[in-house]
């Protein structure tokens, strides 16, 4: 009997990449979903739905190199669909935004973890998603733009706005707490 060398078929190889990346990124997907929806049960459902859709879409996946970004794109689509139905996510016209850079203060470095999480959850979803994808999940501008299906320039300007708003919020929390602390 002739024994043929084992060669994984293309589809099966792609599938194995998706399985591995999906299971490795379950915490990141869940954290992102929870940060964007504010609800643990909904985050769980959305990640479960992402896994199901990703597995169904494997035959149509032509490039498995950036599977992580692809999974996040499926998740963000699900989150946006849900939020639109509930009127929680209002799209801002992408071409209205320009990049305005501002100075970095010490507000984030000096803030408590709780304040950072609170400030992050106070941002509007369209800027919060950029801070999460680029600052926390470490995607590039190009990847984040592809995940959210917006122009890269818009992604950059929204990230800059998110950082500015975060710093303002943290400054406000700090002022409020020092005012309280200053009282006898």
């Amino acid at each position, binding site marked *: 009997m002739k024994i043929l060398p084992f060669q994984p078929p293309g589809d099966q190889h792609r599938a194995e990449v998706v399985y591995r990346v*999906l299971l490795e990124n379950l915490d990141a997907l869940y954290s992102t979903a929870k940060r964007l929806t504010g609800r643990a049960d909904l985050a769980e459902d959305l990640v479960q739905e992402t896994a199901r859709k990703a*597995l169904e879409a494997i035959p149509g996946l032509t490039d498995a190199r950036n599977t992580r970004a692809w999974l996040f794109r499926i998740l963000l689509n699900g989150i946006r669909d849900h939020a639109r139905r509930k009127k929680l996510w209002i799209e801002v016209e992408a071409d209205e935004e320009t990049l305005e850079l501002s100075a970095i203060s010490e507000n984030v470095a000096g803030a408590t973890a709780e304040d950072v999480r609170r400030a992050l959850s106070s941002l509007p979803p369209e800027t919060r998603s950029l801070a999460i994808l680029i600052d926390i999940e470490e995607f590039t501008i190009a990847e984040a733009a592809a995940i959210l299906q917006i122009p890269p320039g818009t992604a950059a300007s929204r990230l800059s706005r998110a950082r500015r708003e975060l710093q303002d919020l943290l400054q406000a929390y700090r002022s409020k707490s020092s005012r309280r602390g200053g009282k006898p």
Partner: protein
Amino acid sequence: MNCSHARNTLFPTPEKALVTIETPGAMGHLRDCDECQAFFERQRGLSESLRTKAGVEPAPDALRERTARLVETHRSAALRSPRDRKQILAIAAGIVLTLGLGGIWLASRAPSQALFQEMCADHAKYLDAQSQLPSSDAAAIESWFVDKAEFRVHVPALEKSDLLGSRLCFLKRHKAALVFYRKSGHAVSLFELSKAGVSLSSLNRTVIDGSPIWHESFSGYSLVAFENRGVVTVLVSDLEESELLPLALAARRG
């Protein structure tokens, strides 16, 4: 290229910025500009602080197990192409012939034995009753399970035991309703799962009040089980088997 143009081109940091026709010029400016280097260092610092302070929230065990099962099901289905199916059938036929009836009997016991051991491990893991639904209200727990389990979950009152709450868990591909109790300072886990694919015959069998009840010890934990209307109920605790048995009988009576 001036500082403002270089910073806009390389925002948020040179590693994450979009690569455009202007990137080489901006990188050239950055090499020679201490202020722009400091600007991007502060951007990196901000990103790092946010990442560290926001933290990562681990996915719940139930989600992890559901996803792993989904992947396993998908993988098995993908491997079952028509040609593979013929090969699998041929191999399966060979295995059946080779193993014989004794082997098959042993094979049927092994998964359930592993399932019961997993229940004891799960009980040990959640000794402090980390419930998804902390509640002492049996009716509330039963209704919480309505859209989660394929069968009607019954939460029995156990004598001199406090009801603490419940969670849904996945054990060796079986979905189980888990209800936590505490009796005299000892944690008691009550699992309910569909009888399909569960063999109680690997446990010791005793007939009490005309119906069989199964019991065993694993790693210092007592386990008592019974079956009723297609649902297997298993109690696990570090109580002695003789102390756990009356609770199981009370649960069986309903």
